């Protein structure tokens, strides 16, 4: 590294250590840029793919109010994806490039969205648990070192709490409803609990990117810390619902001041990440198909814009002449 670069790197490290924000045109280490592109784009992909399991129930929503709420929520998710793709583009990569990585299978997205939504209560469980876990991950990101990412996350967090509340409200309505509804709610909790815990990622010892990300104030808490916080917050909520968390080892540990919980099946997690989850193929196919089928539309809009601009230029030339 040249003396100039060493100087820039030292200044960068000092900035980060002082909790200052790094902005798009500031000098940054290549590895920092690459890590951010990976993290932000995968976050964006997660929002977009996340539209699919919930979108699955829009046409079958059991009341017009629920239909409207679910439409608004899924629309928010699209918006979040958009804020994040925008933040990513400030790092010198285009949306098309990162989408190509998603469609080719090179880029990852949150493993949770590879699970199916099988009954209406799943929509409640996804809002309550999945958005709940996401909020836990996202609030610290509002203070992350990269300005555009932090600002996008502030917007996202403002909108996200409605998502969790509406999810919990669905679970409450179901849990206090008919025996069939209560059974659906319990069934949804049974299927979504463990995948939600896996959302926080493996123990940091097993997580390749954690240490460097923490050093650069991109990641503020360890995976295990966040997961524990999530369990502690969520178990009392399940109790309020009158539902049983599907973990026979779950118990309050007075000495620790936290809930002890059972072992996570990390084999399942790694299989899902590698593409062997119940819905991986459907999710990617849906995104690829939408993109491919939309090509003629995007091309047409671009062609029209070009033609219009040319016409405007000709008109002004004629007037000037």
């Amino acid at each position, binding site marked *: 590294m040249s003396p100039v670069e060493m100087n820039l790197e030292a200044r960068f490290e000092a900035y980060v250590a002082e909790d200052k924000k790094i902005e798009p045109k500031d000098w940054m280490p290549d590895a920092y840029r690459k890590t951010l592109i990976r993290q932000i784009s995968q976050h964006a992909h997660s929002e*977009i793919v996340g539209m699919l399991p919930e979108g699955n129930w829009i*046409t079958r929503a059991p009341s017009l109010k629920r*239909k*409207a709420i679910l*439409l608004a929520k*899924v629309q928010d998710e699209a918006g979040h994806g958009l804020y994040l793709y925008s933040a990513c583009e400030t790092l010198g990569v285009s949306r098309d490039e990162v989408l190509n990585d998603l469609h080719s299978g090179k880029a990852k997205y949150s493993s949770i969205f590879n699970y199916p939504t099988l009954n209406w209560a799943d929509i409640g469980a996804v809002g309550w648990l999945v958005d709940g876990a996401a909020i836990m991950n996202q609030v610290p990101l509002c203070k992350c070192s990269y300005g555009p990412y932090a600002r996008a996350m502030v917007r996202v967090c403002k909108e996200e709490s409605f998502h969790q509340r509406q999810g919990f409200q669905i679970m409450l309505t179901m849990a206090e409803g*008919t025996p069939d*509804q209560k059974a659906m709610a319990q069934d949804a909790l049974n299927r979504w609990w463990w995948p939600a815990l896996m959302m926080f990622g493996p123990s940091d010892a097993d997580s390749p990117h954690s240490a460097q990300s923490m050093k650069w104030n991109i990641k503020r808490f360890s995976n295990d810390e966040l997961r524990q916080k999530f369990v502690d917050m969520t178990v009392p909520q399940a109790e309020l619902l009158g539902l049983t968390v599907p973990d026979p080892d779950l118990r309050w540990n007075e000495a620790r001041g936290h809930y002890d919980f059972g072992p996570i099946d990390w084999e399942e997690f790694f299989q899902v990440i590698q593409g062997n989850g119940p819905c991986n193929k459907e999710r990617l196919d849906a995104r690829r198909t939408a993109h491919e089928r939309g090509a003629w*539309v995007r091309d047409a809009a671009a062609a*029209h814009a070009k033609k219009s601009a040319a016409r405007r230029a000709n008109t002004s030339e004629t007037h000037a002449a």
Partner: protein
Amino acid sequence: MTPEQHFQAILRVGDDALVLGQRLSEWCGHGPVLEEDIALTNIALDLIGQARGAYTRAGSLEGKGRDEDQLAYFRTDREFQNVLLVERPNGHFGDTIVRQMLFDAFSLARLEWLAQQTVDLELAAVAAKAVKEVRYHWSHSSQWVVRLGDGTDESHAKVQQSLEDLWPFTGELFTSDDVDRAAAAAGLFPVLEDLQAPWVDRVKAVLDEAGLNTPENGWMQRGGKQGIHSEHLGYMLAEMQVLPRTYPDATW
């Protein structure tokens, strides 16, 4: 206009909005570009809201205790009175946006009338809110028809075909039956036939700008308003209504 006819007239407005809103909802997560996914979903949301407003008014008028959900989820397709145009399948994006443009031009005119009539003030309030929304829908759909008509050769050919396919469903919008006539005589509805010429002018202006041919008026399909629908509506309603029908005692 009898109370029953008044009720059915409002139902038609609600059914058009619900069926079209349901169709647009199917695009969620599958749009040609993220920004457009958001736009279509926004329009769907507006339409669901319009349906809710219309159904709530219809239910209270009927006075039999039916609310918006009872009307949406417990009527059969033979009881739905939406026009055939809105139940056409989404097809590709061009089909969807042409369907939208043709309907928006009609809906805007109908809502503008409903917003200023004084026969049914509750319905007027619903319509007044909807007018603002549909002005935006019209702007969005007509701009897209121009982009696609005057885009690439491929997009031009595709939407010209969409137009030919959907044109036979536009006649129904302007063909009155007994309910429409009674509502118009009472001042609740505009005379539908009177809306046709301005609609043609409006639509033709967009098609001309788009470089598209306005199709010839041939045989027009109808029956939607009388409850005689295409085969598509049955499937749509089966999907839409499945949960409340399976669990009729449940609240959601």
